């Protein structure tokens, strides 16, 4: 009995000690390399980032290992905030553009990247602006932008003998022809609420109200949010509602993707981030620019989406800064864009060729056109939810375009 007990205690203590011994050896290995973690909202890009980071370790900084730790996209802002508050965030962080990023910089959670070598010359002003404070300080290194386009099913277009519409009026007649032939013209739905606003409404908006110069006039009050251009944009949403799937109010973003991917819908207004989703097997598809109404220039919603910054609380600031500086070089940006998920476009002020055909096709649409960020992001973020709701109400016929525009303008007045 006693012997048994001694034996048991011995084994137990061995078992308990084991992790300590094992942990000790593990730590020794870690000492040789500096390990940084990169927080991100791109949970889909683990493979791409691992390649990119492996390339960085192998060719640029053999003593640095960067680990990619993504969070579920909708939870990223809150999770990051929580981690920063409790001091457990990674060394390198994905930074949202405009107000969301500025707020974290003001709270002291983002490093002042203005002195990162190369950052000032590598990007043009409009690429820097989303991650710039009013006083010109940069709080992150611009990394990627996304575009907003119309995905279309080439087979359906060929079968129906349709051409790519170049004006909004053409677009509507293409839709009505498709519908008359029993094909759902558009895959978009309103159930998830964010996609109809961010992908669709913000995507077509520059066509109706103009690009960045015009946006600034709306922001400073020179132009009203219920002028005829805005009413026309809401009216466009009212017009296309009948071309969305039956019961579009219950159609989620995933449903829309599935409808387009299975050829049940002919077109899908979406962001470039899904360029890599559909592949080329079984679906013959392409993209075209969201068309502007007659007499207006087609403009593209090219949204600055991703930047990377450093956590000031990191234990290895030198290594982290070196990585950010590398991203500002042509060499770094090329490695990055070759590994980046399809549909995320490099922002560096250099000619960088992409390896994916669809990505090149999408980026080529920007040529010669004005581009701008999503309308509310730069200065009117408070209007995000009200405008989103207004668009949905217009689509469901609960509000006229004029009423929707007036209600948004009234909100702006109430705030000032």
């Amino acid at each position, binding site marked *: 009995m006693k012997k048994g007990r001694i034996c048991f205690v011995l084994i137990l203590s061995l078992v308990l000690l084991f992790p300590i011994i094992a942990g000790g050896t593990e730590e020794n290995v870690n000492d040789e390399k500096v390990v940084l973690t990169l927080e991100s909202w791109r949970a889909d890009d683990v493979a791409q980032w691992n390649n990119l980071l492996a390339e960085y370790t192998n060719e640029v900084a053999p003593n640095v290992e960067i680990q990619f730790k993504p969070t579920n996209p909708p939870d990223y*802002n809150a999770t990051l*905030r929580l981690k920063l*508050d409790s001091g457990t965030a990674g060394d390198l962080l994905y930074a949202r553009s405009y107000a*969301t990023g500025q707020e974290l910089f003001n709270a002291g959670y983002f490093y002042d990247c203005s002195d990162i070598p190369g950052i000032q010359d590598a990007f043009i002003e409009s690429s820097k602006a989303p991650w710039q404070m009013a006083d010109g300080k940069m709080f992150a290194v611009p990394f990627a932008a996304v575009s907003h386009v119309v995905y279309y099913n080439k087979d359906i277009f060929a079968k129906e003998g349709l051409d790519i519409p170049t004006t909004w009026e053409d677009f509507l007649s293409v839709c009505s022809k498709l519908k008359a032939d029993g094909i759902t013209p558009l895959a978009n739905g309103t159930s998830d*609420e964010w996609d109809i606003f961010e992908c669709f409404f913000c995507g077509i908006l520059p066509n109706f109200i103009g690009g960045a110069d015009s946006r600034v006039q709306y922001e400073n009050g020179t132009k009203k949010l219920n002028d005829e251009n805005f009413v026309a944009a809401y009216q466009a949403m009212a017009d296309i509602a009948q071309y969305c799937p*039956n*019961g579009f109010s219950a159609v989620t973003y995933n*449903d829309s993707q599935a409808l387009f991917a299975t050829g049940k819908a002919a077109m899908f207004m979406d962001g470039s981030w899904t360029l890599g989703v559909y592949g080329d097997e079984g679906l013959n598809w392409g993209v075209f620019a969201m068309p502007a109404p007659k007499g207006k220039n087609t403009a593209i919603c090219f949204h600055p989406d991703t930047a990377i910054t450093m956590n000031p609380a990191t234990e290895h600031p030198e290594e982290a800064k070196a990585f950010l500086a590398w991203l500002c070089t042509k060499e770094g940006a090329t490695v990055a864009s070759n590994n980046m998920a399809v549909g995320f476009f490099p922002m560096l002020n250099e000619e960088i060729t992409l390896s994916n055909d669809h990505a090149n096709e999408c980026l080529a649409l920007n040529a010669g056109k004005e581009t701008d960020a999503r309308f509310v992001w730069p200065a009117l973020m408070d209007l995000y939810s009200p405008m989103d709701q207004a668009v949905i*109400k217009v689509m469901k016929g609960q509000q006229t375009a004029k009423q929707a525009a007036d209600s948004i303008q009234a909100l702006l007045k109430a705030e000032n």
Partner: protein
Amino acid sequence: MKIKSKKQKKSYSCVEEKKYYWLRYIIPALLFYVVFMAYPLLDSLRLSLYTGNTINSRTFVGLKNFIVLFTDPQKSTRYWSAFGNTWIFFLINMVMQNCLGILFAVILTNRTMKGRQFYQTIIFIPTTFAVLVTGYLWKLLLNPIWSGPTLEKIGLGFLAQPYLGQSSTALISCTLVSCWQWMGIPTMMFVAALRNVPEDCIEAAEIEGANSRQLFARVKLPLIKPTVGMVSILTFVNNFNAFDIIFAMENANGAPEYSTDLIGTLFYRVGIAGQHPIGIPDTGLGAAIATITFFVLALGVVPTLKATQGGDN
């Protein structure tokens, strides 16, 4: 009772000397409760008087969070709409779940009932599924895109409506899914309670000539009153705090047009996740919403407990 305690005193005379001997028995549970329940609860009440997100930047603002919540036109609209929706959600759950729960329990405990185990299992199975799973399944079933073709084949095409997309039907649909899922719990509790009704009471009533309706209303129901109270309280607390089913079937915004926005989703949006796309939470305001909910729950629970629990025990 008195006789019993005298007996105890005799047999455990060593314990009798210490007046608070019972205290040491509850210390582990008490410690656990204080650390993991009472302290966080009181701390969240305290948080509602502060603003700022980080521990360092937190400043005392008194009742400002509550004043903002009820006077800021946008915030108060959201709050009262969520408050109203929560009551609708709770009341439908209360009536559907518990009335059907009692009905099923009476049927299941009927002595002539055949295949009781089978039905009992069927009723209880949805309870064992994760809310995200049932929510997602129902989301697909209620989506005309996916269920429409099947429904049309069997000639019920008119049923393919976007139930979760119309503000008139979304909340009711979510509520009924919640009822469907949790129906098993009250049923099981009522079954257990009805089985404990003493056989001699029922026999006595039968000899007196009571019919089955009288037997239920005058004998069984009064005897299971404490269970009815307990189940009501559980329904109240669980559904007033509901969040998961809406999150699974709609989104944290309470789509469409905030028609399924409950206190739970509003709290999540304000206090935990922050409003998309900025996503910066306001913990103070969130705590204020939680505090009000806490008092509403207390106001509901305490009278129900008093009315149904005490009695002759």
